[in-house]
């Protein structure tokens, strides 16, 4: 691809990702409706799909308000951080053999680094609001993200060992014979959990925890700034699904259909699975979540790392 093409494709991906995240807000509500014996938003346009537009119009029309007691600069900056970090991460995702923006040899590390930056958004939003509920939400998110970040990176090292590369394209190519979800099922499991925690969705939505902290870190946010947080959350969901597809389910690989279609189908199936999780599972308590992270998930990841390393060495020896 020429430089101009890359820029064009980059812009396309930004629009597609933001649009996808927006449609996801509607799609999730409809899907939850199906599972909960109710309709969900079904009035506007075919199957209620224009609900997204209505929501956007509403949010755009809201008073752009900053509470007088908040730390103004940080309060405004916080919601942008998550969106920027999430969008940047999409740069390294290979949507097809030739459909990507960047193919760098540290693609995986770039992704991990960017998602870590997103933590600042929640943390700063919680602190800058100068509200007790937001503060508790911010504190929870800091603790949660730090603990889940640790094994999120480690859970992917097995994949790196098997493929011998940090480049996401190489990782996909390495799955031609066997998707990594089979040899790396522990890695898949732990990465998935860490992924939900990173995008703080329902079983792990403690920073927000509607029933405990009213709205957690974004209690004081409204209008477009609130919409940015929501956008960031749904971009995060989309990103995690893209990454799981790339790292464990062979990315664009698949017979008969064009690669981009395979990629989209896999991402779609994963999104449905994540929505189902949200519908079904209650929220553990804050300290139980920490205990799960440090006492179960981390040892499990380390075990996976040791086993994968040992088997890789054995196979090489033969």
């Amino acid at each position: 691809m020429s430089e101009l093409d890359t820029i064009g494709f980059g812009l396309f991906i930004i629009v597609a990702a933001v649009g996808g995240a927006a449609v996801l807000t509607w799609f999730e509500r409809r899907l939850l409706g199906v599972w909960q014996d109710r309709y969900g938003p079904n009035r506007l346009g075919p199957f209620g799909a224009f609900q997204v537009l209505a929501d956007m119009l509403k949010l755009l029309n809201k008073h752009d308000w900053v509470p007088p007691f908040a730390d103004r600069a940080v309060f405004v900056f916080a919601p942008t951080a998550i969106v920027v970090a999430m969008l940047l991460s999409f740069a390294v995702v290979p949507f097809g053999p030739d459909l990507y923006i960047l193919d760098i040899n540290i693609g995986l590390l770039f992704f991990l680094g960017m998602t870590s930056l997103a933590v600042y958004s929640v943390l700063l939003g919680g602190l800058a609001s100068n509200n007790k509920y937001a503060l508790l939400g911010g504190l929870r998110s800091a603790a949660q993200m730090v603990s889940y970040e640790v094994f999120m990176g480690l859970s992917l090292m097995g994949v790196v060992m098997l493929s011998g590369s940090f480049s996401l394209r190489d990782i996909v190519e390495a799955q031609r014979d066997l998707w990594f979800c089979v040899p790396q099922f522990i890695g898949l499991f732990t990465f998935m959990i860490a992924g939900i925690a990173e995008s703080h969705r329902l079983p792990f939505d403690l920073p927000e925890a509607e029933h405990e902290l009213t709205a957690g870190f974004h209690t004081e946010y409204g209008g477009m700034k609130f919409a940015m947080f929501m956008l960031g959350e749904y971009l995060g969901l989309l990103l995690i699904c893209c990454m799981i597809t790339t790292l464990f389910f062979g990315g664009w690989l698949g017979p008969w259909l064009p690669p981009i279609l395979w990629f989209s189908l896999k991402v779609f199936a994963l999104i449905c699975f994540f929505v189902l999780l949200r519908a079904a599972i209650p929220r553990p308590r804050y300290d139980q979540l920490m205990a799960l992270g440090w006492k179960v998930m981390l040892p499990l990841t380390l075990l996976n790392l040791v086993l994968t390393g040992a088997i890789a060495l054995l196979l090489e020896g033969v």
Partner: protein
Amino acid sequence: MQQAHASSGNTTVDDLLARFGAPAFIAQPTPDHTATLWVSRDQVLDVLAHLKPRFPMLLDLFGIDERLREHKPAGAADFTVVYHLLNIAGREEIRLKVAVTDADCSVPSAVGIWPNANWYERETWDMYGIEFSGHPNLRRILLPPTWVGHALRKDHPARATEMEPFSLDQEKQDAEQEALLFKPEEWGMARATQDTEFMFLNLGPNHPSVHGVFRIALQLDGEVVVDAVPDIGYHHRGAEKMGERQTWHSFIPYTDRIDYLGGVMNNLAYVMAVETLAGIKVPDRAKVIRIMLAELFRISSHLVFYGTFAQDVGQMSPVFYMFADRERLFGIIEAITGGRMHPAWFRVGGVAQDLPRGWDRLVREFIDSMPARLDHYQVMAMDNSILKQRTVDIGSYTTQEALEWGITGPSLRATGMDFDLRRDRPYGGYDQFEFEVPLGHKGDSYDRAVVRVEEMRQSLRIIRQCLDNMPEGPYKSDHRLTTPPPKERTLQDIETLIHHFLNVSWGPVIPAGEASFPIEATKGINSYHLVSDGGTGSYRTRIRTPSFPALQQIPLISRGLMIPDLIAIIASIDFVMADVDR
């Protein structure tokens, strides 16, 4: 109105007379045959302490303004404080009354004997201005701190039209704002210890998990609850005051709105108290219809509890299934009564109409389909390991503590206490039904839910028996004090016509006397203590609700836990703010 004699036929009373001497008491006969004794202010604490081992529960404590009462019982002065005690093992009740004058309006506090007297005494002070000497924290509880006067006194206006038009000038607004300022010291909480500075979090009155307008001031160390002080009164609508203004009949719709999830269950406690006063016997068909409707509402209320319980620990879906079931239930209730949440359908002497044609098919379809759905919910919610992690061993109390704090109903049975008024002191025909009383054993949040879930199955069993054995006959008693009164002969003789006209326009005159009628409502013991002064309306309506004492106990069971635990506790208590504040 007689001097108590040495042989009253009641062993408790005999024992009291032997211990304190007959002259210490004046017995008051009541239509509900509950032993009612007047005792002097100086002796009341001794008598209460003496009764405590036998009557472990202070069921209710309230005031009566006797100043305008024509049929004053012997022993009464300006105000009366009533202590209603319950002996669970012996299935008996006793009422003690203390008379005080307006000039010397003070009674010693019973907080040292029963901890739950605390809020009851605050309420009595709030409503009547009766001082309780020795009370640790005698502040307003239901009315705002800036309120002037004591609302249930007979000289306090009942309607806005009896008062000056309301206005809010700057000075008043400042005073109100000032009163709202949160000062931890006033709530009995320290701002810091030597090495920790506490954070105070105001949970409510508007918060997604407080089920209405309920406020708890939390003293936090990190996320750990050091102390929690509940603040109620945001839902107070003066239901007891309204009871003194409405006729006996026209108060029925107000009762629906006390425990607004319990629907006709509220009517039941009220109309049965009125029927006790009037001596009305209800025909069998009306009894069975009442039981069937009451149990349908028990299921409806428990479904709401079940769904919100799961929701409050973060499970998103169950509440939608349970509300869908509740909607089907409301379909049946609407077909029978015409109303949904607040049918106001029971009448003094029976029910408003006969059952409609085809009611049995609707009810049968529902009770046939429900057990399978409950099994489904069991797997979805109660067996979920995260839900168990969140609720097992959280917020537990012992049977002893529950009794001390006046906890009744499923929350009491969750501790293993085998007590259900429907079985142990059957009222309204419950003795004709077969059902079990589900019990828990740990008294924690999870067991409180388990008991309620199991109660739904038992209610289905009772409804099936109603369905299979619905007696024929009239749905209302043929008694002249029922509403609307019998009409058959009105167009044949003038006497009956006059009576009919008066009973319809003014309402029936219920004979003077006092009666209360405790029933096993959806959330615990609900009881209306009615005082008739021989008029067309109640002289005093006291509503004892199960939610009120349950909230008072929250600090005791939530100290040292985390905010999410507190939410789980609140979810497991199953209260309704209208039931607390009335």
